[in-house]
């Protein structure tokens, strides 16, 4: 495949753009909806669309991990959190703080800066897509051969986070006092 112009997009790019629109729109709904449970559900949609994007980008293993961990575990965890903090199920008016305008300005400025930089820097960058590069076999070989040390460190971190979460949330483990 040779590098072509940005427009018209190829079929893969069209698919990616469509998925991207879904992801961005649902993300926008996550941060604007008035119902907290809906936010969690829109998050599922956004994460799923992102998993689709990963698939288009030939990172299939990452896509499945995304579906398993984010769509599965993380959102369920968030729902538990919503439930345990006795959040209202229906629409509530006070999900946004008074900081909305400033937040919007800062976010738009961030977007402007980032998009400008990215477009300016990578207008010509073209990545040929080779199926199978992100398969479980290739990725597993990479991780367990080259990145095994960070992987092990990460397992320790995960253990520490687990213990920390338990200690923080349990009420019958007091401090030293």
């Amino acid at each position, binding site marked *: 495949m040779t590098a072509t112009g940005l427009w018209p997009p190829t079929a893969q790019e069209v698919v990616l753009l469509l998925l991207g629109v879904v992801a961005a729109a649902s993300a926008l709904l996550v941060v604007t909806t008035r119902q907290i449970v809906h936010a969690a559900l829109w998050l599922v949609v956004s994460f799923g669309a992102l998993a689709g994007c990963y698939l288009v980008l030939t990172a299939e293993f990452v896509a499945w991990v995304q579906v398993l961990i984010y769509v599965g575990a993380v959102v369920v965890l968030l729902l538990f959190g919503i439930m345990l903090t006795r959040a209202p199920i229906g629409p509530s008016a006070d999900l946004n*703080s008074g*900081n909305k305008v*400033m*937040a919007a*300005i*800062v976010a738009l*400025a*961030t977007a402007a*800066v980032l998009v400008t930089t990215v477009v300016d820097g990578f207008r010509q960058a073209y990545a040929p897509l080779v199926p199978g590069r992100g398969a479980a076999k290739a990725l597993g070989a990479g991780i367990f051969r080259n990145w095994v040390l960070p992987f092990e460190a990460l397992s320790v971190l995960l253990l520490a986070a687990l213990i920390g979460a338990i200690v923080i949330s349990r009420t019958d483990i007091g401090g030293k006092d």
Partner: protein
Amino acid sequence: MTGHEMEAAVAVVLLPFLAAVAGLLATRRPWRATPPGSVDRNAYWRAAMIAVLPTLVSMLLAIWLFTIVWRLSPPAPPVEARSFWNSGWSCLLTGDLTVIDTGGIPITVGLRVDVLAALLAVLVTVVALAVQIYSVGYMRDEPRYPSYSAFISLFTSAMLLVVYAGDLIVLYVGWEVMGLCSYLLIGHWWEDRANSRAAVKAFLVTRLGDVGFLFGLFVLGAAAGSFRIDDVLAEVAYLPTPVLVTATMLILLGVAGKSAQVPLHTWLPDAMAGPTPISALIHAATMVAAGIFVVARLFPAFLLARPTLDALAIVASLGMLGAALAALAQDDLKRVLAYSTISQLAYMAGGLAAGSDLAAIFHLVTHGAFKALLFLCAGAVIHAVGSNLMKDMGGLRRSMTITFPAMTIGFAALAGLPPASGFFSKDAVLAAIEHATRSGEYLTDAAAWLLYGCALLTVAVTGAYAARAWLRTFFGPSRVHNVSLPEPEPGVAHVYDGREAPASMLWPIGALSVPALLLGFAGAGLLEWPTAVTSVVVALLGAGAVYAAWRSDPAADPARVLGPLRAPCERAFYIDAVYYRLFVAPVLWLARAVARTDDTVVDGAVRGSGRLALGASGILRRTQTGNAQLYITGILAGLLIITVAAVVLG
């Protein structure tokens, strides 16, 4: 001269100093403290012993030194020689203890005894001893007697240092210590606001002169390349006249301050606030004599600076006549004596200006004797009467059988009547001035004639005020309050009981009357009969006028002969008021302005910056709401701005 003369000179200076230290440190016993305000009898006697004995030894040593120096000198000076410097009396003893290397001109710590210094030292120690003994009785009921006597000792020591100093800077040390002691002693009864004000005034006015004095010494020393008095005097003849005039004019400023000459004389009458023995000490022997002494000491430099001599003559003329007139109108006995001191010092200054330091020093010595006598007698009178004012005295000649003749001698000497000492010395000064009018060697004609005229007039006025004080105090009807005074002032804290003073006060009076009466014969060789007859006649004229006025109405004040002049004389020609308007009031105004500026501008700026910081921080404080979201917003916004700025500007 390999004897022990220098050790003796050092001892003369150091003994009173050690007495001062011992008097301050060793008289009171803190573990047996008496309640404040009461008199600790033991401390009192210890202090008296510590004060009197070293002064006595000092006096004996000073007399011994004088005899040695005298014997080594030619037996009698030729009459024509009117200066110590060309009379052959230049025999001296010197000894240097150490040389302080200053990096510039070194300072030689050493003493120097010649006839002039030895003579003055005898005067100082005799008067100091008399004052110390007199104070034992005068200050009997004074709780702070120990510190008082210690300060007198320190004062004596400082004056002796001035007299014996072999180096100008050493001399200046003694000079300044005297200023400090005068402040401490004049303000001895500082509980009274007026006394401490008088002390501060004395200190500041003399200090004003001391600034000039110090710079004069610097000019002289720098020009001569040495501060040693011998070296300086040897160099004087080779120095350019402008340098000499500058140096001597500056020194003259210090002399005017210390010796209470116009225009820095105003502190002396106010210094009467101190105890009477202190007045005797200051007026007769120490403080005011120092100025005249320094001029005599550096006389070769003055003789070569004729403008300075002219200035000295004018200052002396103004001072002697003005102060004498002021003395004529005062009602306070001590103030009469104070103004007479200014007048007599101006006489000495006139003698110096006329080129005869011998006459001036002669008058200084006799004046020291009779003025100390007068002050001690005045102290006895005040002690007995309980008031300083002559309108409360009168008719005391019957009750004060010893004080009366002593004071009569004193007044006679003051007026220059033979055979008292003042007659001879005043005549010597007058003769010197007369010579100056004729020779024109030292003074311009105008200055010399002005000086001569003023001197003759002053002789008359001196006779007048001496007679007035004498008559008002001892003759006529008694105006003494025979009832107890309600609340005795500090320092005059005695009730009239019609008795003589205690023996410890009478002894010094009696002892001092002898030199006051007879000392003049030592200088009889200087007598010139025409001048002497003139001055006696003039003095008798003045005294006679007062006597006539007094005879017509013994109860009234003879000062009324002054007529319309009386009020200005009594106020000393309003010089204090003029100084107040000219110097004190503007300085006070300036001080208030500065204080206001400091309060509003400087402090205002400080307070304003404080308020500004508080206000600004109050505004900034509002951002610290505790809401972490706002913080993150700020951080991100700042990050973005920095990024954009880095991209755009970089």
